[in-house]
């Protein structure tokens, strides 16, 4: 920055380094522990840097426990949730940003949607559980990808609505009106003008819903059994009745975190831009 003294620069980096260390320490510790064998685990005091790195935890997890199956569950559920929330939320957001309803209904609808996020998820768990165990058309939602994806998607719908409204408001009204005059219907305008222009926001929103579903624990715990179980539940599953498989648990943590981390890094550009854009005008 212009006019910055050396001291200021050093101080700035020192603060950033300190904060980063505090934030990253647990992550480091998780990676560190995941590479330790049974022997090193028992060492007192604990070794700060792993002395004899081993892959036995990962081997046990991936080969013996077939942990990757849970990963597939997580991916499918998150994709279902994000696709659902983004497609429905985008339509809703577009309608609410373009059409003025009487009696300030736009605002009331948006606020009502927000209340979905206000009550604790546990409130819905028992009715959902009962409903999901009922057979509808020969199909039970309990312990299915679709079942959990539906719930996750619905939970994140308000987020999508509020974010996408911000993005749509940024699109010049003239441009859409030009398309209307040029011969398009509203839906065609949404598809050909609004969505391409809001694409970075759409991507950011999709990723946020994906991550939220990926990390969600409570509903995933109750609404799945063994078939559609997602990663967070499987991580917690390393706590057995009589002992805690610390090494496995740490390895499971690493495996669960890495994909989201990569996703976030890849989409960083969209995320920051998207969040900033949506935030200012939303």
């Amino acid at each position, binding site marked *: 920055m212009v006019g910055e003294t050396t001291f200021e620069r050093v101080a700035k980096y020192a603060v950033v380094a300190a904060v980063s260390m505090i934030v990253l320490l647990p992550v480091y510790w998780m990676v560190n522990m995941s590479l330790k064998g049974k022997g090193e685990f028992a060492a007192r005091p604990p070794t700060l840097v792993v002395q004899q790195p081993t892959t036995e935890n990962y081997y046990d997890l991936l080969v013996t426990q077939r942990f990757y199956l849970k990963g597939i569950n997580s991916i499918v559920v998150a994709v279902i949730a994000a696709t659902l929330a983004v497609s429905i939320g985008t339509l809703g957001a577009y309608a609410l940003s373009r059409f003025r309803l009487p009696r300030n209904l736009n605002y009331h609808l948006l606020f009502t949607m927000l209340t979905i996020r206000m009550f604790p998820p546990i409130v819905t768990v028992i009715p959902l559980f009962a409903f999901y165990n009922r057979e509808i058309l020969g199909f039970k939602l309990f312990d299915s990808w679709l079942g959990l994806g539906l719930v996750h998607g619905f939970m994140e719908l308000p987020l999508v609505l509020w974010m996408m409204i911000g993005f749509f408001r940024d699109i010049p009204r003239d*441009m859409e*009106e*030009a*398309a209307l005059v*040029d011969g398009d219907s509203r839906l065609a305008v949404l598809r050909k*003008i609004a969505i391409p222009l809001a694409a970075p926001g759409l991507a950011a929103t999709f990723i946020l819903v994906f991550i939220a579903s990926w990390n969600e624990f409570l509903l995933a715990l109750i609404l799945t059994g063994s078939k559609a179980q997602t990663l967070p539940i499987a991580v917690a599953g390393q706590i057995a009745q009589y002992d805690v498989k610390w090494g496995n648990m740490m390895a499971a943590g690493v495996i669960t975190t890495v994909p989201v981390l990569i996703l976030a890094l890849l989409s960083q550009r969209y995320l920051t831009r998207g969040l900033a854009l949506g935030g200012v005008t939303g």
Partner: protein
Amino acid sequence: MMRLLGSRGEGRSAPVSFERVCKRFGAVTAVDDLSLEVPNGEMLVLLGPSGCGKTTSLRMLAGLESITGGTIRIGETVVNALPPRARDIAMVFQSYALYSHLTVYENLAYPLRVRKLSKAEIDHRVRDVAQVVQIEELLDRKPRALSGGQRQRVALGRAIIRRPAVFLMDEPLSNLDAKLRLHTRGELKRFQRELATTTIYVTHDQAEAMTLADRVAIMNGGVLQQVGPPKEVYARPASVFVAGFLGSPPMNLLAVEATSDHGAPSLRIGETPIPAGDRLGASISRLRTNGNAAILGVRPEDVVLHRTEEPGSVPSEVFVVEDLGNERLVTLNAAGQYVVARVHADAPAEMGDRLWFAFDPGRAHLFDPLTERRVD
């Protein structure tokens, strides 16, 4: 789609008619009882200050704003309830409203793609229009890589490529710099004459209105004030508003008293009676005002300055002199009322000078202070 377009084929211009059209936003009346006929092929300019309802009228015609009351027709078709796409119109927006994620080529092709024309036909027409508006070498660019003038051409190209029944233009020149604006104004006029398509053009710039229009429609406060050819509205403004809006500087409007001087009708400016002449004299009886008050309108170019008192001249003091190079504007203070005279560049006048001004009553106008309408 063809069914929605009614009986008009593509490429056929159509007349437009507003019949007692109203637009209300809640308690605010934006357009009040607008009736206006635009014959086929005419260029009509809607002129007025901001907030006068001209853009709202245009947007109602485009279908971008609903109509509170009245009827709008394009050709024979009542379009009140038709969506914009079914009205066979093309519009140039003030912001140009180019599709920023598409290339110039795609922008031009857009209205044709919507109509599902064949690829070859689209390509043919895009290149044709690109040549007409001189943007052939820009076809692969995105709008953000264009200058203001180039964007304006793309917007124009996108409008004419459709061969619509009516062109709508919402201040299309206001984002250009002064020099380019003059140039584009001329081109626009040529295009319009060559295409001979009905055009409704909205502007607040009277120079644009005067130069482009076959007829000018002047609006104020949602009410249509006057419609007519530019020369006519300039020479014979229907109301005090039109008189004070057109011209730069606008018409001088003076509070006068209608009296008679030895039996001949006369107008008193301050203490000075001046003969009203036959035309103005006859119109005095049409004043609906109580008392004898009237408003006298004189164009600055009709004001004549005298160094000495002449019969029918009014004493005044020079308030300020503004030189414009080829002419000068002399503002006079005549007993508390200001009068602007547009005179020759070397006409002698200094601040503080005592001058007498006169005018030809045959070229002046009389307005009723109550109705604010012209009575002569």
